[in-house]
């Protein structure tokens, strides 16, 4: 141990000024999320136009709504990555727990007439209970069987919601949230900024919870399960309980996101229960970079923004003027996203967050290659 650290210490004293400066820089930039958070916090007061990225000023209600959606999905993808990137569980039914939060809260408000706070708590509990129950069953099969079982559960729930048993879920139209049960400060277009802050708070909570649990002892076991489950077993730990904990935690965070989504869109729609919805979560995580701190969040934000803007693009005049060979695929956002997803898997393994590191790795190798070419002459 000491022999290993010795040379490194000497090397540092050798180029002290450089190391000192980069050390100071590193310490200063370590706090970059804080200024980022304050920038995000004051966005509703901004009148800055971002041409190409958004329509009109950034603080307009329409843009705030879009940004809030981006933040919610950023948080949702971060929570989902707890399964995919941290524990190595490929769940295809995550939409179910999100929808459970949305539908349970909405239904309690509509049918029992309870105020929003109580309903939200019940909705969250519904998400916890559902993920605990279905996770306990689904985790009995390992590997890809687990993926298929979660998919089947989510699909069954999706069918159930669309069949509208007893008029509770509203079938294919969904049901609007009762405006009189919601807090007045969270209803109406003039209060979009409040909703935006709620979404931001959700994202911060998810990031904090995920970061905290991943650094805790249980997070280390998750990492072990992801790398080699058999070895975790050999060490005397039972992976089942740890996997279930990850599943329930991710389900709870998703249900919380569902409640925020209910506030944001003012209702529950069956679109959030479909397997396509889970697959889009998967695309977000892989796009951003699975198993990293910021990757899933970045992926979620990028995907939601792209989804919205590609929809606008598909309906725009510029696309309608193109020849049909190009126009037809461009008019389908899902086609573009599917193709983009496959492209990311090939071209950008590790997602968007790995991009700077890959560029940096590409640059020195090119400069290092030059002297090699000179040497033989």
């Amino acid at each position, binding site marked *: 141990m000491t022999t290993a650290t010795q040379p490194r210490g000497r090397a540092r004293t050798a180029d002290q000024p450089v190391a000192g400066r980069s050390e100071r820089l590193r310490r200063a930039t370590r706090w970059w999320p804080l200024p980022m958070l304050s920038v995000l916090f004051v966005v509703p007061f901004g009148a800055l136009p971002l041409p190409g990225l958004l329509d009109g000023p950034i603080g307009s209600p329409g843009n705030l709504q879009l940004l809030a959606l981006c933040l919610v999905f950023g948080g949702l993808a971060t929570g989902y990555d707890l399964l995919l990137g941290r524990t190595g569980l*490929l769940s295809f039914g995550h939409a179910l727990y999100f929808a459970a939060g949305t539908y349970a809260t909405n239904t309690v408000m509509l049918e029992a007439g309870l105020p929003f706070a109580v309903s939200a708590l019940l909705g969250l509990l519904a998400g916890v209970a559902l993920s605990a129950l279905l996770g306990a*069953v*689904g985790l*009995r*099969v390992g590997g*890809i*069987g687990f*993926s*298929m*079982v979660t*998919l*089947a*559960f989510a*699909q*069954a729930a999706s*069918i*159930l919601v*669309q*069949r509208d*048993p007893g008029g509770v879920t509203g079938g294919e139209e969904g049901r609007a949230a009762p405006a009189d049960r919601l807090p007045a400060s969270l209803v109406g277009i003039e209060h979009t900024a409040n909703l935006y802050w709620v979404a931001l708070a959700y994202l911060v909570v998810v990031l904090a919870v995920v970061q905290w649990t991943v650094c805790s002892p249980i997070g280390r076991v998750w990492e072990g399960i992801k790398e080699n489950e058999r070895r975790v077993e050999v060490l005397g730990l039972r992976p089942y309980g740890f996997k279930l904990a990850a599943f329930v935690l991710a389900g709870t965070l998703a249900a919380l996101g569902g409640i925020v989504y209910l506030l944001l869109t003012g209702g529950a729609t069956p679109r959030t229960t479909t*397997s*396509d919805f889970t*697959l889009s979560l*998967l*695309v977000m995580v*892989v796009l951003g970079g699975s198993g990293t701190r910021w990757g899933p969040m970045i992926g979620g934000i990028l995907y939601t923004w792209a989804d919205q803007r590609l929809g606008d693009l598909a309906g725009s005049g510029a696309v309608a003027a193109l020849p049909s060979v190009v126009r*037809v*695929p461009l*008019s*389908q*956002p*899902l*086609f573009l*996203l*599917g*193709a983009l*997803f*496959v492209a990311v*898997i*090939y071209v950008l*393994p590790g997602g968007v967050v790995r991009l700077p590191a890959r560029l940096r790795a590409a640059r020195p190798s090119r400069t290092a290659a030059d002297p090699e070419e000179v040497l033989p002459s």
Partner: protein
Amino acid sequence: MATVVLLTFTGLGLGALYFLIASGLSLIFGLMDVLNFAHGALLSIGAYGTWWAAFGHLPGAGFGGAGFVLAVVFGTAVGTVAAVFLEVAVIRPLYTRPREQILATVGVGLAVPALLSAVWGADARPFPGPKALSGTFGVLGAEVPLNRPVLIGAALVVLVALKVFLGRTRHGLVVRAGVEDRAMVTALGIDVRRAFTLVFALGGAAAALGGALGGLYFGSVDPGQGTSLLIFAFVVVVTGGMNSLTGTALASVAVGLVQQFANYYTTAGLGDVAVVVLLAALLLVRPRGLTGRLA
């Protein structure tokens, strides 16, 4: 009695459809450990290929008699080519990254139905089927549509053909050995990757045939058909024990029958849920599926 007979035939027909998808899925999964999420897309390609050919785009093909057979053959061939292309272009470059293989098929599974609905519209297209198959026949007082026994017959033919292929031919031997222990087969100097492409072609052909005949069963084709059938095919594969062909066949019959009977005798849609509840119950009792040979 008549209702029970009709429901049995319909359930068996649906089970046959599930088997056509699930057999390819379980073969691919058994050999390559790839869960092919694009399998539903292959089914849709087969369905649209048949429909496109039968609508007069292919000379000689049509919705009547021999023309329909030609259309089905064409649709199956298109699906097979698509499956081979999928394996060579998408799966093969990712052999060293199994997780990414699954994700890539997810992307293809999203993109292909979207492309189909971009070209031919998102709405269902009518699929009339030949006159000879559109009638009904009487069994024990029930009027059973003729397309049910056609589907069941096709599934039986595929089952027997796959059994013979796996049990009697050299390629089948390589596939079976690969399912058992892929590393050992490679160590013996056999190129398993050729078997990968072969299995994809077989699975794609079965799924595309399922798509073509599914058009008969549903009376229409739409871009989302494959994906919605795929989810029940997953249930079938897990219930049947992941990589056993016989288990898959048994499970598809069970799932099809349970779904039809529950849908009729309870409220519509509950049958689909009942299937999943049964799956959960089975997993609690026997986590390795019906035949208990989980890899």
